[in-house]
């Protein structure tokens, strides 16, 4: 557009389309449009890479030491759990099986070389059991939260976007779900499951199914505020469909609070799983879960407190890590705190 042709000559044809203009070169049109001194406003930021919202958030999260430590801790636990088969049985004995000899000679040992967290009443290495238990805890935490987020976001989006009776029906249903006593209701659900079918999936279903109402409310309120923006009206005026506006334009602008709360919820789901397993309604032996380990160790609390202590610490540290990470994500996504 910088090259200058001869002075502007009128066109032979009266109605050129934009594309025709383009073919002829935009230089004369441009000269026409911004005749006179070059506009001052053109001194915008040029060059350089433009960070995305998430790129920006990641940059800020990295500078938050506490959140970063939490993230590192979660990654350590996750990697240890995923790779457990490769190194736990070789070094600490297989914590998933009962070695009759060990059960007789090595029961309830205090922490010592070879058994950093000691052993339980059946001579199994507690460190190894904590590592394997992380599998159940993290799986339940992540998948149950994902289910809750999916249901909650879908219903919250419909509710906030369409309003009216859709909103009323969904929100009243949400109110009813929120009025259920959470743990009692999951106990009820799991009590219906026959004992031989209990395990990780019924727990995930119960926690996920009961967790969505908060997400629905959160996302609904977020959608309500985002949909009032001018760019949504502009999008509609350009011919965008409801689905496009809702999922392509509103959701990316409204999802941040859900991401924050979901991160924290993973910790909550881990706690719920521990509680349900402690009550014997969650995963069944020989599967390992932190809540189950605390339940098993209850009887030996006075003579070998380490049996309860270490799975307890595992729950505490992991749940705390998810909460701190959630806090960090909230700060990172808050554009008002931008520096």
């Amino acid at each position, binding site marked *: *557009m910088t090259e200058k042709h001869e002075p502007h000559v009128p066109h032979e044809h*009266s*109605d*050129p*389309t*934009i*594309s025709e*203009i*383009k073919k002829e070169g*935009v230089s004369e*049109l*441009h000269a*026409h*449009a*911004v*005749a006179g001194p070059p*506009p*001052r*406003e*053109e001194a*915008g*930021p*040029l*060059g350089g890479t*433009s960070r*995305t*919202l998430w790129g920006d958030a990641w940059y800020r999260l990295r500078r938050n030491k506490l959140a970063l430590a939490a993230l590192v801790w979660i990654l350590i636990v996750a990697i240890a759990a995923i790779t457990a088969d490769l190194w736990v049985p070789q070094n600490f004995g297989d914590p998933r099986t009962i070695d009759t000899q060990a059960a007789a000679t090595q029961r309830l040992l205090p922490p010592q070389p070879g058994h950093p967290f000691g052993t339980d009443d059946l001579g199994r290495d507690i460190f190894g059991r904590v590592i394997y238990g992380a599998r159940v805890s993290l799986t339940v935490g992540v998948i149950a939260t994902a289910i809750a987020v999916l249901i909650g976001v879908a219903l919250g989006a419909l509710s906030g976007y369409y309003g009216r009776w859709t909103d009323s029906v969904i929100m009243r249903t949400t109110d009813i779900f929120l009025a259920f006593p959470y743990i009692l209701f999951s106990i009820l659900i799991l009590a219906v499951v026959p004992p031989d079918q209990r395990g990780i999936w019924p727990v995930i279903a119960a926690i996920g199914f009961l967790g969505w109402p908060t997400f629905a409310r959160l996302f609904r309120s977020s959608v309500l505020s985002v949909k009032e*923006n*001018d*760019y949504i*009206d*502009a*999008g*509609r*005026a*350009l*011919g*965008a*469909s409801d689905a*496009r506006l809702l999922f392509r*334009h509103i959701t*990316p*602008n409204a999802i941040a609070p859900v991401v924050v709360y979901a991160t924290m919820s993973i910790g909550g789901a881990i706690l719920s799983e521990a509680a349900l397993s402690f009550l014997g309604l969650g995963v069944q032996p020989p599967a390992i879960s932190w809540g189950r380990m605390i339940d098993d160790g209850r009887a030996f609390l006075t003579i070998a407190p380490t049996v309860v202590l270490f799975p307890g610490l595992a729950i505490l540290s992991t749940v705390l890590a998810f909460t701190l990470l959630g806090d960090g994500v909230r700060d990172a996504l808050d554009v008002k705190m931008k520096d």
Partner: protein
Amino acid sequence: MADELLRVDDLKMHFHTRDGVVKAVDGVTYTLGKGEALGVVGESGSGKSVHALTMMGLIPMPPGRIEGGDVLFRGRSLVQMPEAEIRKIRGNEIAMIFQDPMTSLNPVYRIGRQLAEPLMVHKGMSKAEAWKRAEELLTLVGIPHAESRVKDYPHQFSGGMRQRVMIAMALACDPDILIADEPTTALDVTIQAQILELMQALQKRTGSAIIMITHDLGVVADMADRILVMYAGRPVEYGTTDEVFYRPLHPYTWGLMDSIPRHDVTQKEALCPIKGQPPSLIALPSGCTFHPRCPYATDKCRSEVPEKRFVAEGHYATCHYAGDEGFVRGEVECAGVSA
């Protein structure tokens, strides 16, 4: 008029609120030819924006309700058209530029993506084609370094630049009609002039018809072929720009003319605002809605609603005395504004 593109026929859009019926648009009639520019002028609340949004089917109903009249675009009724049909027209055949460029772009997407979207939706272009076209469009509206600017986010653009982007977006699909709803109100004066020049240049080249909605007669003077003056939801005067400027018929139009700031007269006479306030649209004055503010009002004005009075082909005013011998624009005392 050569090729009739749009016919607005006695359009009435009323809002049913708790406080009563708001007659936001009440009997607007005009036609728009291919490539013509219409200026719609009026104070805040005169129904000029609502009439445009009604045409586009962008007024939520309820509370809005079309009480009568029709809008024919290429002979097809936009009022009766199902949502799925009208969506293909929005942004494609009739596009709109909004008032506030600062809030009309989605903050989470790159400019190029937002320009590409209507092209992909309406013209079925591939992503690569659409992005290439986005670059051309940015160049067309006078944004330098388009090839790198398409990758920038809205916050990296100034107000004037964003309005250029909005214009580019509206022009993306080569619309037949471009509705500009106070496109320069949110911009400062020097940028205003640039944007108006740009729109004029683009209109000449693309052959789109323009409906320019503004409260500023000065803005439409240069640009419009015809002018529609609205007051309290009703059309008060309609005619070619020359006729409305040189032979205005309605006392309200006279008042608007006196309210244009001028630099060639003494400070004392510089600005003569119309006395009083626009009426509440719920409780409209009886008879002619302008009579409480009209210095020429008679008993007839207070009791009878004036019909359209044509003084020339395509030039009418809704005033009992329009065109009468001796009923001419007089000297107004400028109360309230003195040096």
